[in-house]
């Protein structure tokens, strides 16, 4: 495996949450609070330090392709398992001041928990809102891409547990091709709003966890045009430099007069 990747397909997901549970079991992730939200069947709400796979439930007034549902108005219920995107250009990795966050030999983004000192900078640098600090532990946590399992020749726990192959694991290039083919096939079958979510044309440079979704990314809280925050550095530092020069001039001026 040179570049490991996930392709998660909403049209194959049955919302069983086996991925959430398998991930927690394997990685010994603690629970994230017993909160009933009333958001359809989603009581997990979002990814975080203690949720690395999150199944979303969307009840929408739209049709799922050719599905025939005997209701007065169009209706569909879509499920999708969200995960850390393992970005091509990762905001968390660039931001980490201790070097705790690294790119592994399978191309994933890994937080080394024995180095992390919980500074929290990765948390505000992720354009997808994935990584977070765990309390009271103090360190930052996110999906490890089951690096330990991959190193032992196994596939990630979520992909293993998924009963319908909604979560596919494989080589990045192959899955990228597969995602395009899948969307073409779905559109041919009548799922006119099927699309791939893989922000290749942004500074993130594509993600190693891609999704096949129905409808707009916004509905899944996926940012339509995510950017890696390092693109803001140039303008910010330039401003700092110019302001600094102006300040020196003012201080000089203050002492000269």
């Amino acid at each position: 495996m040179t570049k490991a990747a996930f392709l998660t397909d909403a049209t194959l997901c049955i919302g069983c949450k086996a991925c959430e549970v398998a991930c927690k079991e394997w990685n010994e992730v603690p629970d994230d609070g017993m909160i009933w939200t009333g958001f359809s069947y989603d009581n997990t709400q979002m990814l975080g330090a203690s949720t690395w796979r999150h199944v979303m439930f969307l009840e929408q007034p739209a049709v799922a392709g050719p599905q025939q549902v005997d209701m007065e108005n169009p209706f569909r219920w879509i499920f999708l398992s969200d995960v850390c995107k393992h970005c091509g250009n990762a905001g968390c990795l660039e931001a980490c001041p201790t070097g705790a966050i690294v790119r592994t030999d399978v191309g994933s983004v890994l937080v080394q928990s024995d180095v992390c000192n919980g500074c929290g900078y990765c948390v505000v640098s992720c354009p997808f809102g994935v990584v977070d600090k765990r309390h009271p532990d103090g360190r930052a946590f996110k999906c490890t891409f089951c690096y330990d399992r991959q190193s032992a020749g196994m596939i990630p726990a979520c992909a293993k547990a998924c009963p319908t192959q909604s979560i596919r694991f494989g080589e990045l290039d192959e899955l990228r091709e597969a995602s395009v083919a899948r969307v073409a096939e779905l559109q041919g079958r009548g799922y006119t709003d099927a699309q791939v979510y893989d922000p290749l044309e942004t500074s993130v440079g594509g993600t190693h966890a891609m999704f096949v979704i129905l409808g707009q990314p916004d509905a899944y809280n996926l940012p339509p045009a995510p950017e890696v925050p390092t693109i803001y550095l140039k303008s910010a530092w330039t401003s700092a430099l110019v302001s600094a020069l102006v300040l020196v001039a003012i201080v000089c001026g203050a002492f000269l007069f």
Partner: protein
Amino acid sequence: MPGLGTTYGRGGATTAPNDLLNSDAILIMGSNMAENHPVGFQWVMEAKELGTKVLHVDPRFSRTSAVANIWVPLRAGSDILFLGALIRYVLESELFFREYVVHYTNASVIITEDFKDSEDLDGIFSGWDAEKKTYDPKSWLYEGVEPDKSTRAGQAAPQGCHGGHAEHGLHAMPDLSRYHQDPTLQHPRCVFQLLRKHFARYTPDMVERYCGVSKDAFLRAAETFCTASGPDKTGAICYALGWTQHSNGVQMIRCAAILQLLLGNMGRPGGGILALRGHASIQGSTDVPTLYDILPGYLSMPKFGEESKTLANYIEKYSSCTGWWHNLDKYIVSLLKAYYGESAQPENEFGFHWLPRVTGDHSHQGYWLDMLDGKMDGLFVMGQNPAVAGPNSGMERRGLSKLKWLVVREMVETETASFWCESPEVKRGEWRTEEIPTEVFLLPAAGHAEKDGTFTNTQRLLQWRQKAVDPPGDSRSENWFAYHLGVLLREKARRDPRPRNAGLLALKWDYSIEGPRREPIAEEVLQEMNGYIVANHELVPGFTALKADGSTACGCWIYSGVFPKMGENRANQRTAKGFYGHGWGFAWPSDRRILYNRASARPDGNPWSERKKLVWWDFQSKQWTGLDVPDFTGTKAPDYQPPEDAEGDAGLAGDKPFLLHGDGLGWIWVPVGLSDGPLPAHYEPLESPVRNPIYPKRQTNPAAEAKTRPGNEYATSPDARFPFVMMTYRLTEHHTAGGMSRTLSHLAELQPELFCEISLELAKELKIEHGEWVTLVTARGAIEAHALSTARMRPLTIGDKLVHQIGLPFHWGYNGLVKGDIGNDLVAISEEPNVRIMETKGLLCNLFVGRRADNAAQLSEYQSIAEGKIA
């Protein structure tokens, strides 16, 4: 189970989940397969990708509906109307597979002229005894068949002995091989014409008015499913507790079974009926049963009376002249030899007298009501949580407090184990712990990875599990417990020479034990179930080697073949070959994966089509061959005709696939074996918002028992106090009564609180804010839950009124990381007549905004709510 058992011969799924890949259409009804069988559901998703049409007919739009091609909403409890209309559609549109129907079913058989249909008698069939509330099925027999083989076995069984888990549990087995038939299907009393007449009024109009399904939706579903039949196409039906937990559940299943016979789907790839069993190994728990009315391998438990006076009587009653049950004597004798070993000899009828006799309704509901009446001293509860999972769970908890002693064996402290201190009755002050006389023992049990043994899953597949770790502390396996309990009881019995202990002392109880914990060797038990020759303990290759003379022993004849020789534990094999996975585990019987697969070939032995070939006759080697183990005698030629008076399997012709039946045919018409009719008729649930539109004079299944008593009352049908229809169900995230999921943080956090699902319309009408607390009340009790208002719940127009349906998951209780009210407090104790299962769908309820305590005044107006079950 008896729905399938009577129709086809064996009560179990006839196919395997992966066979759904071969289906051209899949009808999922009475089931939420994606949520409750997510792993099995992968085959449905894969089939869908291959072009299979998936239909989901259900009151709720669940996670199964979300991925189905077609979803049809349905009023809970109106399934027979819908299915009956499908049957009528098939008959009227001539979509039935004629050649299959004529040769392989009893559609052409002529019924006795004494028979009167429910259409003639305003809702009951002939033979109804209004006092005893039972049917005498004499008038349902084939013309020309004598009711009983002999007079001795003909006496009626005592009241309540109507357990139907055995294939032919009710009456003596008549000789069904001598029937008259009309292969043109024209004779007015042939099954085909009786069927047509019986379902004539189940029209799409009726479906629209009383199921709430628009005619378009019905016809679309009917066409999609019913055209997937014939030589080149097959369709499968999947069902679960959405059908079984009804007062006429068995008849709902019967409708599907009839449909599959008409469409010629049985025994064929992509066809069949997938009865989705729930728990891991619940199939095993009926194969090697802890049920009161059957013995291992679906032999009948002897009932008190003439039939059990001698072993010969019993055999006379339950074996058949023709068909496979002719071998019953071999199985019962081998079972007795397994139980009693040396003590079982021909002279003492192999210890037949030591078996208990059924004297009444000893089902769960039956004995629980006895418990409530103070008739029971003690109870072992192992791997069940009746305080939450039992119907009318408030009454179940009440029953526990009447016991002298209670032993609970569990991995966690369930609500049953702590009823005496944590139940709502105690919390409300209704009971005081100090006054409960029950002595409660909670013993720790081992989990599934901590013990050896097999699971038998829904496709009848035995898979061996190896112990991975020792159970912690004092936790022990069921084998350990049962074995050592037996040792202790036998020691006590030795000191007590009364005749009643003779059977206990006669038991063969010499299992080898191993290790410091003295664990019985599970493989030995499996070997015993496989069967062996008594003289030299050699394992038998299968049930055909069993004998009736006491020379063989076999603990479960349908499992025979799982351990054919020492070292060959087929349940533990993991090399799958071929599409059906032979070489991975062992499917009973004899590793046949698709039952009745003789029907996948034409009467002449060739496959119906290349596309749908499964098993066929090899004309060279003169035996049946194919992609599965033939469910047929291997060397019986397709054109074999039995000689006059031939018995057993030899009495069935070579084109009769349903070999457990005396006539070898698939039973569209069930002449014997069911308590409530040879054909399904629509009755309303025990509580319904409408009167029965088909039979206004018979509102509910006449043979079902409501067990009405104080604390177990019913609403009227309809009832102004309870305008909404309610159903309980499972969510993927939790396990039934929640003992194994509410105690695990990773599962508990997925669904932490009890909620009920209501439609947006109902929320608007009652001004319920999404998520707020509401109180649900039925004639049995009241609970509180969050209101989840969603477009997925649809109100339906039934008759002339709008009926709202409310869904309620039942997983919560008073222990664990997450707690909530107990859904089953709302359900009634009732008994379907064949299997005595309760009705959990189609109840009537009411709903108010606010928590239980806030609604105390309103709840007290409901007089049916006994003993102040509020706050």
